[in-house]
């Protein structure tokens, strides 16, 4: 596994956090909460509460902080923990869904954000992404949105760098196809 690059502030923050500094945890939260929230959204069904999952992911990260090895990149470590939280939530919600049938009047109300072209673009992108197969969508998001290298994406997903590249490439090709079909319609 490669060592971190000098410009990445996260490894230094992790070391301070391991030493017991609350401010370091706050800075880590500020840096990671937003990308992790987006990533968790790609992992779980729309009905699940992403804020709860995000807090759970940070709690798991706190409990596992001993396992971060100084000098290593932080993102694969954090994203792997968040991925596990997301997949567990998805699995347990899937089990619950088999047991319960949600009545129409119990369906969660979906809030629409303030109007704006960027929000609309994002919503369109999220809708297009929703139709993609899980591993490809995840790899695409991690690499193109969150900026992880394919090596790091592979580490998060537990596959090789090449497999991560193939997944993202296939998902991107499918996404282009869908976008084109939608534009033609």
């Amino acid at each position, binding site marked *: *596994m490669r060592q971190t690059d000098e410009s990445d502030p996260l490894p230094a923050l992790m070391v301070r956090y*391991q*030493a*017991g500094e*609350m401010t370091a*945890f*706050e800075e880590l*939260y*500020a840096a990671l*909460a*937003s990308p992790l*929230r987006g990533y968790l959204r790609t992992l779980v069904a729309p009905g699940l509460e992403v*804020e709860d999952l995000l*807090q*759970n992911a*940070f*709690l*798991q990260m*706190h*409990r*596992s*902080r*001993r*396992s*971060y*090895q*100084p000098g290593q990149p932080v993102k*694969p*470590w*954090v*994203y*792997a*923990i968040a*991925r*596990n939280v997301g997949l*567990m939530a998805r*699995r*347990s919600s899937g089990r619950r869904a088999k047991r319960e049938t949600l009545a129409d009047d119990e369906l969660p*109300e*979906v*809030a*629409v*954000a*303030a*109007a704006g072209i960027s929000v609309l673009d994002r919503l369109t992108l999220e809708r297009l992404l929703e139709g993609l197969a899980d591993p490809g969508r995840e790899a695409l998001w991690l690499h193109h949105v969150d900026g992880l290298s394919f090596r790091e994406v592979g*580490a*998060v*997903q*537990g*596959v*090789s760098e090449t*497999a991560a590249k193939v997944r993202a490439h296939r998902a991107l090709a499918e996404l282009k196809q869908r976008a084109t079909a939608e534009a033609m319609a």
Partner: protein
Amino acid sequence: VSAPQPPAPSAVSRAATLPPELRAAVAADLAPVVPLWTPWARALVLALPAAAAVGSLAASRSSSLGLRGVGGSVLLWGGGLVLTALALRAAIPGRGMAGGRAMSAMGLSASAFVAFACGVTAISGAGWMGPGTCEHAFLCGSWIAAVALPPALIGGFLLLRARPLRPAVPAALLGAASALFGVSAWHLMCGRADLAHVALGHGGPIVVLALAGAAAGWGIARLDERRRAA
């Protein structure tokens, strides 16, 4: 679908604001922690006592240096060290091993062990099968499992300290590694070299402990899932 609303101030600053419950939970347990040693350093914690056991047995039995004696034990010990390091590495979040890769590692180890068994049989001039293969294989297998128990327990402790996200894979690797440490010591004690005995009696415990490790890891993952759901 609700009507569009202007974003609330709290939603704007949400990205950077630490939720009070999370802050309280973290602050309640913010003692400094010592990062885990590297997987290789931790693997040596297990491998060095095994090396000492092999060394003392070799000295007491004035064993040969070839594949049939200390040389074979050193090879098996090396295999155990590599698998232990792989297991401890795979337990760290973000450095895990996919199921396919783990299977490849196990397959490679199995092939290496079969080659080793063939080598031992060829060098010693023993046949494919000697008398009482099954009885002796069971006896050797039981001893090896008993010798492998301490490294398996200590390794399990080291493994769980990393809070593995998918414990079944590293636990299977650790089970195989512990068995290899046991076999490396037992290799000097057992006088039989026929292929069926070495493959069954000495190779069998590696498979059994790998499966036991995978089952234990799977059970731990399910327990953890239930605890979190509760």
